[in-house]
């Protein structure tokens, strides 16, 4: 009996000892959950590789709080079900402190509750307005502007073009109303007026809709649809000899559209899209890490995720998800020293200075629900049948 108890004690202590040792040297576990396959397949692998590059650099410079970082990259297959399975593995098996890079809004929406319930921080590139409205209590941030911010930028751009009367033509989408409300507010703030017409995107002709628009006497028409319906709309605007300016989404008026419809129809159309902060220090570092002159927006965003997570841990003096949750805004915004990489940020924090991270995707300042406050937008115009850059601002 005594022997048995002694054996039990001994074996327990033997079991406990290595874990005590391990606790001190245990690496920081971080996860990426990007689409390596599926619709997001072109982006996910590059995103994961970019994070690997940052982690390698930070490890080579001594890690964070004296600990090395261990990165685990999983595939969400651009599919919520697969995303949840992978997130469970990252959380339950690997015990990561943060998950970065969820891409599709459906995946992010499915994974977010797992993250906040397990006190794992989530950084995402998904755009749906509903994501930051989830009851996440500060456990997620996103670097992709939501569709409302895109609407605000549209309105401001129209006003900057001298528009007083803006007519917005959009199909019914989950974001039509919120986006128009943001456009209208921006237009009215600039002393203008805006009106919305929701059209049926399946109709082969929008002549009567264009007649409606012309009666409003707009100086700017916002064509807020996708490629097929926008091409119908642009043709009908041309036929009606609309002489004002036309603004559209860059994802609708794209290279494919320019090849398919007559040049004169799209000539002069202006487009707008969220843009990485090209020319910034962070952007240059992503260019080097990704090995391309034009890294995609999502790679720029996940570069910002990993930098912010590492600096927030250093700032909080702990490597848990809680430390990231409590400290991310202390390093992402404020009046501190401007940094564009975790290496500089970690040195400044170690020296007791405040930092303000300015990333590759933009300034990376977040509001209380985790939406990014401002990002750069890319403005282009169709000139002589080709998209030409007006500015990035």
């Amino acid at each position, binding site marked *: 009996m005594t022997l048995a108890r002694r054996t039990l004690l001994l074996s327990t202590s033997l079991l406990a000892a290595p874990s005590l040792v391990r606790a001190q040297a245990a690496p920081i576990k971080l996860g990426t959950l990007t689409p390596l396959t599926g619709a997001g397949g072109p982006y996910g692998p590059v995103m994961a590789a970019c994070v690997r590059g940052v982690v390698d650099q930070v490890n080579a410079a001594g890690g964070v709080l004296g600990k090395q970082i261990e990165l685990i990259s999983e595939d969400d297959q651009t599919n919520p079900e697969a995303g949840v399975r992978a997130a469970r593995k990252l959380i339950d098996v690997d015990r990561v402190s943060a998950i970065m890079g969820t891409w599709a809004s459906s995946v992010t929406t499915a994974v977010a509750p797992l993250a906040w319930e397990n006190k794992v921080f989530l950084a995402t590139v998904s755009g749906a307005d509903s994501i930051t409205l989830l009851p996440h209590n500060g456990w997620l941030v996103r670097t992709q502007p939501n569709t409302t911010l895109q609407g605000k930028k549209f309105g401001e751009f129209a006003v900057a073009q001298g528009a007083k009367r803006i007519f917005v033509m959009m199909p*019914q989408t989950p974001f039509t109303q919120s986006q128009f409300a943001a456009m209208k507010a921006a237009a009215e703030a600039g002393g203008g007026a805006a009106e919305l*017409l*929701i*059209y*049926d995107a*399946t*109709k*082969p*002709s929008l*002549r*009567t*809709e264009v*007649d*409606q628009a012309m*009666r409003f006497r707009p100086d700017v028409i916002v064509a807020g649809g996708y*490629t*097929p319906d926008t*091409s*119908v709309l642009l*043709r009908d605007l*041309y*036929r*009606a*000899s609309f002489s004002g300016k036309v603004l559209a989404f860059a994802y609708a008026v794209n290279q*494919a*559209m320019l*090849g*398919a*419809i*007559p040049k*004169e*129809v799209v000539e002069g159309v202006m487009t707008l899209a969220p843009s990485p902060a090209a020319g910034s220090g962070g952007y240059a570092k992503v260019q080097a890490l990704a090995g391309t002159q034009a890294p995609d927006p999502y790679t720029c965003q996940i570069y910002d995720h990993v930098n912010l997570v590492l600096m927030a841990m250093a700032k909080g003096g702990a490597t848990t998800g809680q430390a990231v949750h409590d400290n991310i805004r202390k390093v992402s915004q404020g009046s501190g020293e401007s940094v564009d990489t975790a290496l500089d940020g970690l040195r400044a924090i170690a020296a007791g200075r405040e930092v303000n991270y300015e990333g590759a995707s933009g300034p990376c300042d977040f509001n209380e629900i985790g939406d990014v406050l401002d990002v750069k937008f890319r403005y282009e115009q169709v000139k002589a049948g080709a998209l030409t850059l007006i500015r990035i601002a």
Partner: protein
Amino acid sequence: MPDSFLFGAILQALINGVISGTILAVPAIGFSAIFAVLNYPNFAIGALASVGAYGGLVANTVFGLPLEVSLLAAFATAAVAGIVVEWVAVRPLNQAGALMMAIASLAAAIVLENVIRFFWGNGLRGYDLPMLRDVQFGAIRVGPQQVKNFGISIAAMVALWAFLALTPLGRAMRAVADNADLARLRGVDPVRIAAVAVALGAGLAGMGGMLIGLDTSIDPLTGPRLVLSIFAAAVLGGLGSIPGAVVGALVIGMAEELTVLLIAPSYRSVVGFVVILAVLTVRPAGLFGARA
């Protein structure tokens, strides 16, 4: 809105509606012709319209053929595709009833749509046509291409009427539609007539698909997007009635445009559903239909 302003807007919407209704009538006649002879609703009609539109696209942009010849190519391509659908997908099920045949045609539509995607992708394609500004007559605006398409649609309908009224084959087709048993007793070959009806119906759908594409651009869903309007036009006119399909298409075309003006543009699609619901409730035979 002042009265004269509103009057102008309504007149404009009616003109737009007559023109779009006339173009819609072409595939609607095709749908009704198939129903009249074969007694099932061929829901592949939308996909066949897309097939025709792409057939015309190849003729027009690859071989550089003029518009009118390309329209014939659209007719021919869709006619062949229609016969293939009929033989491979639909006819093997003709003992299972009209519902099974309709479902088979829906399945075939999905296959056709994806065959188009396989070769041309999902992107937009445009015909090689000059882009013309509209001509203004007072408060009314009309597009030259619109008028041309209107004329072509009328010509196609006149040609169809001549075929049905003046040729032995056309008369035989009408006989089968009228009373299949009687026609068989008189020595009309029902298999041959069915093939003619399918080729004719699918061909008209293909032509309609291209006519619509001429005014806009085409993608694999150009035709399938129209199925509801085509079906509503045919139901309103009376399934199987060719004059009915024409009248039905005109009414649907005008109603859709007036909805934009008087209710809201996003309710345009509701017109089709409301018409189908109302006709089936009040007069299932439709305006010109003899049977229901």
